């Protein structure tokens, strides 16, 4: 798209390789978004920032690996809403309203981060014979983060599910403000342990884009290997978790064992099971000897063989397949509207994977995996993980074919004030925006794949039996901490 295609009153603020930022008047905000959507852009995230005390609304979109951000300065009491155009922006707008006091027009904004006592302020009103509510959480039996689920049910069938997450707002994004770019990396990383590498790489890429740097091929190789190591243990864990959801202990235990083995490979290579502190901004300090890389490849081949055997066991088990089939289905249209990403979206037939267009990482000839029957149900979501595992194993085998050495970025394009990055986590696209003043962070926005997918969980639960919800939830296997940023 060239500048000439944009609505007339949009104003180019900054442009660099792979990113363009435009300012639009508040009354053209919605038209510009419609324009972008019509031209094949996908919504990535929306946030509020207030440079020099003026509230600014920012929405980011992606197409073919290139980002377009639009900004406007709305009337704080009458900000234009995007919910009808982009339902996926609902949580972003509610969060922005809660954190900045912005009031969006045209819809009743329900609180997201604040938790009012009155039930009617945050739940959907459901009436009729025999309807009742079942409340689950926020404290759960397992060692998991806090999250409340309010089920409206008839008998055991779910009519509607209201999610109430965001219990522990840690203020991570606020904590990053004022920190040097390098130091704020720790804040992004700690948003979630299971996606620590993804968050770190997304943050590092955003910083590097803002600084006008591009990773060297060695740096790109190192980060890709780390991302795939993270994907590996997460996918193994997620398949096991789905087996646990139906009380299928053999599947759960085998995949839990494989996950543990994968995490031991992580520790052997990087010193940390969750790969913490392996990513730096503008460089990589990680060093893996040829000997360690070779040992890791050998162990990964063993894990691959075991994972294939275990997956065939799961496939062979008719009872397991019967429990997965047709449960918690969402359509491709709903997944698109809600902005679902990752295996959950691909299970519906949406062939989106950030890895297929990511110039800052090493994914040559990457092919997006697709299930044979993209039914969007639990079976398809679990199958997606199994389908993606061979690619991950192959990538790791080639990425670890030689020693990994410290590496740095090189100057590549014009620096800008705002950098954006999207990285494919095990759960889908994680989007990060970093605004800077010199080498200091002025705004950090991390929209993780879990954040993007939670609304789809609520939809998938509808019209299913209440006891099926844990299985549906595990088939997405999302993170609560990603909301408690």
């Amino acid at each position, binding site marked *: 798209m060239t500048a000439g295609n944009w609505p007339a009153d949009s104003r180019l603020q900054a442009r660099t390789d792979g990113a363009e930022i435009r300012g639009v008047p508040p009354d053209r905000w919605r038209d510009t978004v419609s324009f972008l959507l019509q031209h094949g852009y996908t919504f990535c995230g929306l946030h509020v920032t207030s440079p020099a005390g003026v509230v600014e609304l920012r929405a980011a979109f992606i197409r073919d690996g290139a980002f377009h951000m639009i900004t406007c300065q709305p009337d704080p009491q009458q900000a234009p809403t995007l919910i009808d155009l982009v339902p996926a922006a609902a949580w972003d707008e509610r969060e922005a309203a809660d954190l900045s006091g912005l009031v969006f027009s045209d819809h009743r904004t329900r609180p997201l981060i604040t938790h009012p006592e009155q039930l009617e302020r945050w739940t959907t009103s459901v009436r009729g014979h025999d309807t*009742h509510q*079942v409340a689950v959480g926020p404290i759960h039996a397992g060692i998991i983060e806090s999250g409340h689920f309010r089920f409206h049910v008839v008998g055991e069938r779910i009519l509607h599910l209201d999610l109430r997450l965001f219990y522990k707002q840690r203020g991570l994004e606020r904590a990053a403000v004022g920190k040097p770019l390098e130091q704020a990396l720790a804040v992004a990383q700690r948003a979630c342990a299971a996606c620590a590498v993804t968050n770190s790489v997304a943050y590092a890429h955003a910083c590097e884009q803002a600084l006008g740097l591009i990773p060297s091929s060695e740096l790109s190789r190192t980060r890709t290997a780390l991302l795939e190591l993270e994907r590996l243990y997460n996918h193994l864990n997620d398949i096991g978790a789905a087996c646990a959801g139906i009380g*299928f*202990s053999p*599947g759960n235990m085998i995949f839990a064992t494989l996950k543990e083995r994968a995490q031991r490979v992580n520790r052997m290579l990087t010193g940390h099971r969750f790969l913490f502190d392996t990513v730096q901004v503008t460089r990589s300090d990680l060093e893996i000897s040829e000997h360690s890389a070779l040992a890791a490849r050998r162990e990964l081949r063993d894990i691959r063989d075991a994972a294939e055997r275990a997956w065939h066991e799961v496939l062979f088990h008719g009872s397991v397949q019967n429990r997965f089939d047709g449960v918690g289905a969402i359509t491709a249209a709903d997944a698109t509207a809600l902005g679902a990403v990752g295996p959950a979206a691909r299970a519906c037939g949406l062939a989106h994977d950030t890895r297929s267009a990511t110039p800052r990482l090493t994914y040559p000839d990457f092919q997006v995996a697709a299930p044979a029957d993209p039914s969007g149900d639990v079976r398809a979501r679990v199958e997606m993980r199994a389908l993606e595992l061979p690619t991950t194993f192959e990538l790791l085998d080639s990425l670890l074919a030689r020693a990994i050495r410290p590496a740095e970025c090189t100057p590549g394009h014009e620096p800008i004030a705002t950098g954006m990055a999207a990285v494919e986590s095990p759960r889908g696209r994680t989007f990060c925006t970093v605004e800077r003043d010199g080498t200091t962070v002025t705004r950090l926005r991390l929209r993780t794949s879990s954040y993007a997918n939670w609304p789809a969980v609520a939809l998938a639960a509808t019209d299913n039996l209440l*006891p099926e*919800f844990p299985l549906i939830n595990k088939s997405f296997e999302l993170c609560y901490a990603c909301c408690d940023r």
Partner: protein
Amino acid sequence: MTPSEPWWIALIEAIVIVNILLGLFAYLTLIERKVMGRMQLRYGPNRAGKFGLLQPIADLVKLIRKEAFSPASAIELPYILAPVVSAFTAIAAFSFIPWGPGWTVHGWRINGEVANTSIGLLAIFALGSIGIYGFIVGGWASESKYSILGSMRTCAQLVSYEVSLALSVLGVVILGRSLNLPEIVARQGHFLPYAAPEFIGLIVFFFAGIAETSRAPFDLPEAEQELVAGYHTEYSGMRWGLFQMAEYINLITLSGLMTTLFFSGWHGPWDIGPIWFLLKTMAVLFVFIWLRTTLPRLRYDQLMRFGWKILLPVATVNAVVTAALVVAFGG
């Protein structure tokens, strides 16, 4: 003529059997956790005592010391009585299971069962039916959503499978020509285990029995990952312990009943009486544990379909065919 057992021997026997049963229950939990652990590539309990042998005692101490919490909205009397009813009926049902041929020591008769009655089989089913009330009432009296869902499932599942369970033993009753369990065992000793002629009945009994004892893969009333803990979600301490005890003793009783009805009870190649009974019962219990470790839980509609559309017709046909053959060939 064989002298009858005096009441005081029956009383001592009852006390001994109840204690053996409770000990078996305690160590069955350990065996189950050990076997499941090994099948799932882990060790199982191994910290309390050598090989974890003191784990059941540690569990007991923990349960006794734990607060018996009850929800403020619980309906108190039925809430407290429900686990007691379940535990009592479970223990009482075992008293009809014959574990030996009986002996005469110094002229005193010692029976191979605590209670010998001509309707022993019916009595076990009757006590089992009363025990179900404990599970249903406990969940209902908890005034909790998940508990009531567990109770409703208990009610539907146990009523559905009880029909198949009763029909599955009809063939054995026809062949044994008695509802008296020692007589059924004695007849198998002279003939052959009824597992052979009543193989279909055995299969139906096995599946219906798993459902009746709410064991995996038919553990829908509890469904740990789905319903928190089903009907006993709101129970803790020894009240919860009583429910657990009832479930495990029901399982032991069911295994004992299966040994009695289909595997010749205490009979075996060598005359070691109760040891045979114990070995056979333990073998059946192992299969139950094996199954729990191997299969995923069924969905509710799958469970109901299996019960009403497969087990019930098969059990009915089996009973009718057995009756026809007995009439045709004179037993």
